[in-house]
């Protein structure tokens, strides 16, 4: 009988009771509810279940007071690091591959860089305060996740639509603000949704600003590290019987963002966008249609720390993006996905003359004259679930990239401008149109050995065409070339229209032990990537000062070389104590080890993170949250000699945090870098803002101690 009672309860809770159907003479037979779980590794093969990580709103809420830079926050994940840019413009790197080698999507759309220094990478258009989730695929990503990349995927979802239950109106939202003592930074954000059952409107807005921060110990002020920006976006969604239509528009305005490791600062960045997407779910399969347009006006000059002087540089970019994808469940075990994408980028980059300056005048310097980069791609992918435990995704894709640009001109034709005069005439005389036909493929296999152990294997061959600046930067003068590059190394870069696309072969494996409900988890993920025609740099000449003496900086030309990257990412958790409603104490740890080789010159590849170990303890009891995070980073000795990359010393940092939620308001206080340890950022580059002011060249220091206060609430 007890068994019967239990079954009855199950039956009742599953709705196992006769339900009269209106207008039917006959009665209805109820079937026990079917559960469709999404947490099993083999179900998620298309999302790289073991090497993929999803950072949710709750985690971001805990971290948003610490940094306004998404890439910096993502560097907490094993295999991910951040190369320093401005205060909200770090460039993410996954397993040694950075920048445009990765696919970075915001609400499913790619955002083109619009700057010769990549001051506005895609993640700079996002704010940790107003993002709902971030998915990071560090391993082999299926070809359906995007083309024209050779590395992992970062996908940011800002505000998914919410709808009300039938007959009601939903009004919900979130508000937050923060203050950081180091840099006197503050900001705030609000999200507001008003929705019925079919229609939903969401506004998100955020504001951040910061002065220059101080390094730890005696590192003092880190010049050119201030920033400010405002984001507004409005999203509309309409849900009908078989699909979901979304429309979104937004604008970002950043009046200033200092770049400690660049000669220039951003003095204005305005970007607006509209996008639309339709997702339809039919009996034959899913249909997804997307279109987007973005317009960016980007201006560079000097902020206060790099004065006196002036050197305006203006970049304008228009991007159009359109795609169509279908997903066909062809049998109970097989799904076929096919899709096509089109992406158009138009980029213009001009440097107006500086009155009274003989070097920078009398004409405008035309750095890039209306360059276009058009990509059309198509893919086919087959997902198969071989059994309850084993599944695979295999796909191929083709991308055709066509690039062209107009003629260029130097500031003038004086003797001092001769290097640029000759370079411009050679550039204008040569054919500049290039077309690449790129074939990529990926294969992933997931096998659940048991409920507590799962394996993932992946292989991918991926191809990325050079970007506009890699192909079409042409200035050979010292100053013109030092305006190009996103490396933060002070060196000058010259493009090469003849660059070939990068071709990468990646092998990735992962083992996940433990699992949900288990007292511990462990993930072990080794990988190996070989890149043929990796776009690195070859030495052209030493850069000299007015007296003809070497400055220590060099002029380099983008060049195809071969490179390999291998390493291992480890991460794990141990539940030390467990209470109810998520209460408990959890120990977590991770370790990332990576080594890279430039196979052409025999040295290490530039800007690679040394061994990093992180250990954290998080405790939660009712409304109280406590945390302690320790990070140790090894000395960086593997440096790129071509770029005169500086070594950095080992360091250890401790952060402490406490938060309390009262009346629905979460108040947090974090102490970052508790011991005010002085350290150099391993991927920080050289501190050019400080160099201009002090004449002493140093690596960019990390932030010293900061007391971070955060408030957030939901309604």
């Amino acid at each position, binding site marked *: 009988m007890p068994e019967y009672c239990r079954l*009855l309860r199950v039956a009742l809770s599953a709705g196992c*009771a006769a*339900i009269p159907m209106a207008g039917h003479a006959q009665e209805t*037979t109820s*079937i026990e*509810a*079917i559960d469709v779980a999404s947490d099993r590794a083999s*179900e998620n093969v298309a999302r790289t279940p073991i090497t993929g990580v999803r950072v949710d709103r709750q985690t971001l809420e805990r971290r948003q007071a610490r940094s306004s830079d998404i890439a910096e926050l993502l560097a907490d994940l094993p295999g991910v690091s951040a190369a320093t840019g401005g205060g909200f413009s770090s460039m993410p790197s996954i397993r040694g591959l950075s920048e445009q080698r990765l696919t970075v999507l915001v609400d499913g759309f790619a955002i083109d860089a619009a700057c010769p220094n990549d001051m506005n990478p895609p993640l700079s258009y996002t704010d940790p305060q107003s993002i709902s989730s971030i998915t990071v695929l560090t391993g082999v990503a299926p070809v359906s996740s995007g083309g024209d990349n050779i590395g992992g995927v970062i996908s940011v979802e800002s505000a998914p639509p919410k709808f009300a239950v039938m007959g009601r109106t939903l009004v919900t939202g979130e508000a937050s603000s923060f203050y950081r003592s180091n840099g006197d930074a503050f900001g705030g954000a609000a999200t507001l949704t008003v929705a019925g059952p079919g229609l939903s409107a969401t506004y998100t807005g955020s504001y951040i600003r910061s002065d220059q921060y101080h390094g730890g110990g005696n590192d003092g002020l880190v010049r050119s590290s201030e920033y400010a920006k405002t984001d507004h976006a409005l999203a509309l969604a309409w849900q009908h019987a078989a699909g*979901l239509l979304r429309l979104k528009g937004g604008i970002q305005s950043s009046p200033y963002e200092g770049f400690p490791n660049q000669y220039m600062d951003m003095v204005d960045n305005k970007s607006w966008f509209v996008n639309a997407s339709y997702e339809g779910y039919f009996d034959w399969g899913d249909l997804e249609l997307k279109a987007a347009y973005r317009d960016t006006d980007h201006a560079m000059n000097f902020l206060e720390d790099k004065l006196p002087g002036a050197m305006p540089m203006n970049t304008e970019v228009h991007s159009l993006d359109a795609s169509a994808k279908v997903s066909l469940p062809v049998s109970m075990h097989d799904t076929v996905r096919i899709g096509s994408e089109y992406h158009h980028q138009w980029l213009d980059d001009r440097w107006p003359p500086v009155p009274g300056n003989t070097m920078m005048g009398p004409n405008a310097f035309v750095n890039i004259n209306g360059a276009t980069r058009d990509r059309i791609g198509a893919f086919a992918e087959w997902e198969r679930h071989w059994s309850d435990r084993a599944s695979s995704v295999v796909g191929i894709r083709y991308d055709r990239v066509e690039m062209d640009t107009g003629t260029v001109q130097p500031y003038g034709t004086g003797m001092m401008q001769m290097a640029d005069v000759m370079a411009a005439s050679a550039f204008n005389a040569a054919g500049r149109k290039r077309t690449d036909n790129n074939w990529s493929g990926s294969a992933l296999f997931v096998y659940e050995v048991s409920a507590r152990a799962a394996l993932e294997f992946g292989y991918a061959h991926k191809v990325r065409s050079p970007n506009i600046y890699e192909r079409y930067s042409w200035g050979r003068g010292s100053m013109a070339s030092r305006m190009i590059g996103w490396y933060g190394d002070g060196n000058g870069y010259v493009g090469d229209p003849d660059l070939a696309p990068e071709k990468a072969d990646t092998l990735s494996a992962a083992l996940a032990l433990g699992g949900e409900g288990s007292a511990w988890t462990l993930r072990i993920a080794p990988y190996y990537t070989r890149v043929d025609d990796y776009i690195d740099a070859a030495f052209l000449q030493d850069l000299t000062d007015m007296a003809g003496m070497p400055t220590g900086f060099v002029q380099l030309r983008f060049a195809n070389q071969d490179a390999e990257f291998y390493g291992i990412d480890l991460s794990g958790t141990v539940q030390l104590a467990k209470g109810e409603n998520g209460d408990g104490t959890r120990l977590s740890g991770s370790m990332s080890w990576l080594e890279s080789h430039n196979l052409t010159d025999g040295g290490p590849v530039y800007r690679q993170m040394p061994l990093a170990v992180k250990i954290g303890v998080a405790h939660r009891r009712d409304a109280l949250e406590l945390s302690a995070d320790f990070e140790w980073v090894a000395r960086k000795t593997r440096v790129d000699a071509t770029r005169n990359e500086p070594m950095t010393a080992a360091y250890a940092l401790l952060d402490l945090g406490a938060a309390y939620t009262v009346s629905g308001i979460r108040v947090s206080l974090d102490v970052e870098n508790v011991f005010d340890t002085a350290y150099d950022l391993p991927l920080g580059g050289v501190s050019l803002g400080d160099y201009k002011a002090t004449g002493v060249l140093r690596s960019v220091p990390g932030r010293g101690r900061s007391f971070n206060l955060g408030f957030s609430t939901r309604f």
Partner: protein
Amino acid sequence: MQERPERSTLAAGLQSRTMLPPAGLAQEPPLIAPGPAAPASDPTPGADSRTDDVLSRYVDGLRAAILRWKPGGLRKEGTAIVGFRLDREGRLISSQLVESSGDVQIDRMALRMVRRAAPFRKPDEEIPAGKLDFVLPVRFH
């Protein structure tokens, strides 16, 4: 990636429309859980338990056939209730949403599972045609 706050629970929603009080069910127990609940207004009171057995076995088969079409990795939470009717050959005559999850993707995936799983095995002779109307909750989590 939709969320659906403020949703009444499925159980509460269903119980408000349940024809019988739970006590009535308890007195006339189905032999196995997924089987049909015998309503008090059963037109053939005392219908032989063999029919119930056959029906519950058939329902088990239906459930298993539909479950095979479950989509992978949706990563959404919600429950859609699907109603459908079969003919004497096991063919799907009609299928519709009885209760929406509030998320169109979940609703459509639940419907698709039933529609793609059809046609089903021919129902046994013993099962009266009046019992070939089914209701099935599909829970995504």
